[in-house]
């Protein structure tokens, strides 16, 4: 089902083009919109304000209710979606409501309010232009802020012509058409329903942002107003809105401010001189449970700007029509756990590639990929793993068995091997090599080769953690690192008992296997008490240094072992950083400074999780190479470890863009510091017959000693 939807979205003529165009303009415009402001300061404020609210929901609900009631609004708090629907239906009945105008409210979409109202014979009109189009088309929004971004002007004109009246596919004319047609609805509606962007407890006010001006009309013209407000919109003080007013428009659409920001406090008069009826429904639906969850409470810092969707390399290919439910993208997946239950996320949570591009942009500082991992972990725990996956991890869990299997595969692959590549696989595996060749498994793994390298006798000694890819597919990267370290007089030890770092298990939520991998590696690596532990794969580095500790804590291993692992983690350094240090100290110098142009691809985990990106560039430049930056150098290559096996169709689309960005630089060499990225980019270049070389930075550096 999901696979079919992905296919449909990838083949869709508009989706990825529209989202990609938007994204490219957005990144530049957003940067400009923040000129003169300190984004870090603003988002720290948002975190402070929102996390305070989440920790004090009961108190703020009480305060808001008191204040708003005092000023004449009727406030109703409920946990139950059904009660929201009944409440709205009762108000509608009491006022003999025939038509309703609505301004955008995600909370009402969460409970499918329109459907229930229509079933009760009431006409409901969405008035945000995008939402109206989607409503007329009978579709689902493809993006939280840009609901109709997947439609062209021609499709919109068709929808209008079919459902309302004839109009040509001219955007300006269609906007006027919407104004004219909806104006009538506004004037005649008996009830207006809105959401709210913020609810201020101190004053009992709700704050609503719109660009089109539709919310002002919904608030002003009908006699009765109902606001359906998720309790996560609460803030304590009026001044708490300041960082949200600043960040929401800038992050959502790169605007410095939303055109209309309206503050509604209590009861107001109706145009005929009577008083208007104002109802505010404070809606819970799992949110207070979420606030009690030590991991997921972080997601309550979300201000619904959807910037995480804008920068997601997966979302921009398939949109919220596939990636998400009522709430879309990574954050939508997280919210869905609470609004619809963990099981509802079973398929979509897989779509996160864990590149972390959303983390740096989120104004609520939510670590979306980490929360998605937590979903994976809980799903694996609650639902169990499919048998096939279980079988794979039972192999990875046992080093000897795993390594024997890899050695066996090295023999079995012979019929498919063409030089260093596997270009075609039969039948069920064909998709894996359709757009990208796979690396052949090396005849002799690094763990065997390393034994033959004579080590210097110096005092300094580092342990090398190879990881599966370098060990079994790219032993030459390991050799390059040893050569560089030896040149600086550093002895390299290779503990033979080391195994998979645990990332594949960890990123699929299989924490027991990840913890077991971590413990095996801890034992192996600490045996000879090295000064440092180096890895030339940023994902392995990240697991040994940070993520593996989470797995251990999760599996509740003894505090002694955790303390040991923490001590080991301090010694773990990514090779790119360590070698850069040696070069800077003059301990590694280059005698063959061939002038050559290169471009650099930033591995996701190296840049965003380990904050290393300048160092490898500098090292390569020191070795005489000339840097030509590519567009979007730090956007994922589409590998994502086992992601490329789960969703090869998405993975190759992301890869195609990366290949184009590399080609556009004109450089004949692309360097990176992750064997996974190398596998992906090199495989794609091989399939397409592209001329550039793809190398690990360490290889290039070692060649120039």
């Amino acid at each position, binding site marked *: 089902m999901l696979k079919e939807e992905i296919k449909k979205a990838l083949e869709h003529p508009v989706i990825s083009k529209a989202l990609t165009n938007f994204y490219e303009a957005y990144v530049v415009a957003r940067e400009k919109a923040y000129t003169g402001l300190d984004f870090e300061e603003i988002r720290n404020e948002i975190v402070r304000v929102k996390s305070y609210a989440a920790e004090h929901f009961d108190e703020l609900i009480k305060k808001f209710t008191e204040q708003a009631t005092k000023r004449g609004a009727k406030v109703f708090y409920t946990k139950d979606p059904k009660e929201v629907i009944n409440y709205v239906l009762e108000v509608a009945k009491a006022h003999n409501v025939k038509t309703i105008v609505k301004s955008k409210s995600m909370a009402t979409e969460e409970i499918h309010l329109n459907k229930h109202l229509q079933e009760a014979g009431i006409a409901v009109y969405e008035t945000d232009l*995008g939402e109206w189009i989607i409503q007329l088309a009978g579709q689902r929004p493809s993006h939280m802020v840009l609901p109709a971004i997947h439609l062209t002007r021609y499709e919109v004109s068709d929808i209008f012509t079919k459902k309302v009246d004839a109009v040509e596919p001219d955007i300006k004319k269609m906007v006027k058409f919407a104004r004219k047609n909806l104006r009538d609805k506004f*004037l005649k509606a008996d009830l207006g329903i809105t959401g709210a962007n913020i609810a201020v407890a101190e004053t009992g006010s709700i704050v609503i942002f719109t*660009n089109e*001006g539709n919310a*002002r*009309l919904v608030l002003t013209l009908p006699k009765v107003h109902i606001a359906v407000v998720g309790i996560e919109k609460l803030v304590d003080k009026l001044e708490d809105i300041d960082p949200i*007013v600043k960040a929401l428009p800038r992050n959502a659409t790169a605007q410095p401010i939303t055109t209309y920001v309206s*503050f509604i406090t209590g009861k107001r008069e109706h*145009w005929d001189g009577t008083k208007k009826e104002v109802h505010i429904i404070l809606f819970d639906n799992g949110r207070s449970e979420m606030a009690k969850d030590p991991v997921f409470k972080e997601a309550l810092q979300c201000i619904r700007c959807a910037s995480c969707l804008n920068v997601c390399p997966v979302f921009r290919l398939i949109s919220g029509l596939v990636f998400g439910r009522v709430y879309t993208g990574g954050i939508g997946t997280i919210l869905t756990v609470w609004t619809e239950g963990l099981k509802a996320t079973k398929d979509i949570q897989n779509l996160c590639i864990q590149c972390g591009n959303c983390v740096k942009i989120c104004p609520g500082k939510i670590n979306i990929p980490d929360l998605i991992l937590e979903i994976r972990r809980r799903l694996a725990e609650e639902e169990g793993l499919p048998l096939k996956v279980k079988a794979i991890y039972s192999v990875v869990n046992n080093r000897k068995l795993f390594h024997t299997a890899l050695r066996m595969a090295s023999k079995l692959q012979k019929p498919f091997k063409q030089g260093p590549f596997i270009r075609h696989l039969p039948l069920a595996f064909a998709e894996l090599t359709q757009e990208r060749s796979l690396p052949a498994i090396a005849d002799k793994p690094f763990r065997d080769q390393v034994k033959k390298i004579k080590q210097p006798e110096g005092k300094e000694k580092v342990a090398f953690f190879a990881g599966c890819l370098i060990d079994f597919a790219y032993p030459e990267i390991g050799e390059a690192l040893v050569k560089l370290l030896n040149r600086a007089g550093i002895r390299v030890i290779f503990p033979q008992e080391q195994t998979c770092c645990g990332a594949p298990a960890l990123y699929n939520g299989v924490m027991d296997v990840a913890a077991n991998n971590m413990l095996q590696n801890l034992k192996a690596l600490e045996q000879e008490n090295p000064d440092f532990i180096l890895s030339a794969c940023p994902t392995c580095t990240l697991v040994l240094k940070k993520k593996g500790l989470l797995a251990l804590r999760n599996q509740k291993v003894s505090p002694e072992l955790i303390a040991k692992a923490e001590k080991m983690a301090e010694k773990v350094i990514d090779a790119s950083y360590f070698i850069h240090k040696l070069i800077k100290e003059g301990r590694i110098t280059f005698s063959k400074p061939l002038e050559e142009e290169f471009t650099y691809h930033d591995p996701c985990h190296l840049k965003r999780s380990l904050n290393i990106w300048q160092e490898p560039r500098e090292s390569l430049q020191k070795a005489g190479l000339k840097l030509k930056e590519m567009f979007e150098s730090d956007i994922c290559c589409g590998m994502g470890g086992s992601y490329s096996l789960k969703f090869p169709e998405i993975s190759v689309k992301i890869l195609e863009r990366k290949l184009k960005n590399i080609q556009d630089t004109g450089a004949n060499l692309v360097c990176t510091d992750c064997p996974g990225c190398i596998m992906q980019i090199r495989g794609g270049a091989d399939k397409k017959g592209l001329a550039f070389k793809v190398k690990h930075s360490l290889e290039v550096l070692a060649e120039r000693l």
Partner: protein
Amino acid sequence: MFELFKEKASALMAEVYSFKNRKEALEFIKGFIKENTSSEDKKSVVWYDTWFLDGERKEDLLADLPQITFEFTPEIASQAKIGINEVDGAIAESGSLIEVSNHIQKRLVSSLPEIHIAILPKSRIFPDLKTALRSFNLTNTPYVTLISGPSRTADIERVLTIGVHGPERVIIVCVENL
């Protein structure tokens, strides 16, 4: 402060004018009305006035510009081309107007017609949102809107289009000596 406000508001596509006194401002507004509406079009200008026209003879104004009406329903405001009101302040850092509307008519003129003329006392420009919020007692005010330029959308193909449900032009008439 005014210069910053003007820069920010203009960037949002509001049109900002500044006048030394009420008389000059009124002359400008009258000229604008003449230029953009015809006296044949009854009720094409809806005006919610509380202090700006104090001391003026409204009958004279109506005789000169019969298209103006000071009494209107939502339907009339919806048909009008121009809506005029006084706003209560502005925010320099964002180029926003602050409209405190205890009376619904005040809101109707800024939300329904095609053009909104906002009369702004120059002394009421605040540096930023925080300062502005402190000087408005929200607890006594049922409806406050920050208005930043004309109504806009980019919902079809991400093409920015001005004038959806609200005005497509916002004319800010800033008055110095009141």
